[in-house]
């Protein structure tokens, strides 16, 4: 899900920042900022404090640990003296505790600068899996995402996202106008690492020929094995019963003779079976 900020005359990057105030992971929010507007370098002020200096297109800043709350963000020309003359009006970013956000300054489909606040999926993944999030933040019509020539995401529009859960590995991905297979970006190899949300942004402008892919990763979403059951025979147990111990010792002796524990077990069981047969037929003698 994405929430498009009504930026009005947005232009430039949107950012936020932690102004001192350390937040605990439990009640704080995480915020990253992507600058996805080609050709302009900016400074970013959060609550009137310079936070990102000379923020370049294609750059990802953060993540910042912020106490939940609303942050006022202003974008100025690079190297402005302060936040008093923003190139866009200040905007408020509401951030909730426990969530992970990316604010992306980017172009609309029509090429207008804008900003979108995306909420990143940080749900735990199954072992062996990775998450691939694809976000359309480019001045381009709806697109399909092709993996190995096959559309795995269709009709993705600016400024939305689609999410796939995949076996961890590398995907050869390309972006094409929806319904077509001629790439406008890529193909490019994208590593979808295990336990990681790999977020790919298509940004830039189709008309200006500067479409590109930016990647953000959020790790630590893996799940761990529940245990390591690393033994099944009790051969080194500290509580071996006499029978078991003798069996093991006999097994070792058998091994020396080139046999196996299994052989001995089979022989022993065969012996017991013979004993049972003997008893059944009334020929058994007390042993």
């Amino acid at each position, binding site marked *: 899900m994405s929430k498009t900020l009504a930026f009005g005359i947005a232009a430039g990057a949107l950012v936020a920042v932690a102004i001192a105030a350390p937040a605990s992971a439990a009640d704080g929010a995480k915020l990253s900022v992507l600058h996805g507007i080609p*050709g302009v370098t900016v400074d970013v002020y959060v609550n009137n404090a310079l*936070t990102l200096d000379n923020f370049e297109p294609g750059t990802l800043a953060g993540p910042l640990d912020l106490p939940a709350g609303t942050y006022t963000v202003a974008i100025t020309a690079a190297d402005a003296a302060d936040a008093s003359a923003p190139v866009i009006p200040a905007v408020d970013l509401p951030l909730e505790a426990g969530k992970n956000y990316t604010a992306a300054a980017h172009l609309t489909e029509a090429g207008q600068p804008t900003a979108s606040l995306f909420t990143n999926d940080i749900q735990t993944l199954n072992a062996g899996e990775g998450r691939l999030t694809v976000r359309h933040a480019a001045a381009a019509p709806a697109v399909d995402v092709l993996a190995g020539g096959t559309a795995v995401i269709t009709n993705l529009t600016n400024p939305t996202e689609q999410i796939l859960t995949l076996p961890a590995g590398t995907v050869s991905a390309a972006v094409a106008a929806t319904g077509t297979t001629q790439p406008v970006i890529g193909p490019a190899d994208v590593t979808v690492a295990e336990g990681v949300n790999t977020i*790919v942004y298509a940004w830039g402008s189709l008309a200006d020929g500067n479409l590109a892919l930016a990647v953000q990763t959020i790790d630590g979403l893996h799940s761990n*094995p529940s245990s390591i*059951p690393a033994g099944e025979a009790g051969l080194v147990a*500290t509580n071996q019963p006499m029978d078991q111990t003798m069996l093991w010792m006999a097994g070792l002796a058998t091994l020396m003779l080139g046999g196996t524990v299994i052989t001995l077990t089979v022989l022993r069981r065969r012996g017991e079976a013979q004993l049972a047969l003997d008893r059944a037929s009334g020929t058994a003698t007390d042993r």
Partner: protein
Amino acid sequence: MKTTTSWAAARGLGTLAAALPALAVLGVLGALVGCSVQSSPERITTTPSAVTPSAPPTGTSTVPPTPAVDVPQVDADISATQPAATIPPVRVRVADLGIDMPITSLGLAPDGTMGLDPNPAVAAWYQHGPAPSWGRGATVIAAHVDSLVYDIGPFAKLATAAVGQEVVLTTAEGLGHRYLIDSVQLIDKAAVPWDAIFDRTGTARLTLVTCGGEFDYDTLHYLGSVIVTATPVE
């Protein structure tokens, strides 16, 4: 700087246009930022002080401020963000214990526990977790202590490991990574903090795991885990 003056120009025009209807402002800025920054470099000849009434005082120092906090910034281009391939460990040796075993790369067993090679003479590396090449987190190597089919395995000797003994992990590219054992524990399996065992953060370390202690002859499982940790030799 080209981009700086471009923005100054945009800001100046924005200020001048402030008295115009909002739609007009939007149109002007949209055109400027979306296209003209790149296609009309001649606009850049305008200086900020000349077109920006609200610019900071020019009679004083104009040294720009520096950020109060240092926010990490990285090049997000896809070409710069692909992680280096993980290099799996392929052999583990503890000379003092006579352990010298090949390692296979495994993930989860169907029951959600760590996958292990059925042969106790072959160790397993948890392939979704850290490897020596990560430079962080716990590289986890485990092997059955015994088997009904294969008998007792080399990791049975881990129970007798001593602090200070050397472990050498060889990775697929042929590099030997040296570690020194710093702890040997027998822990009741139910009490083992498995998430900590498989921790992917913190300083790089090696964790060797097998089973030990008492055996449950009904479930055919050991009740304890032998856990040996080792830290890299610089």
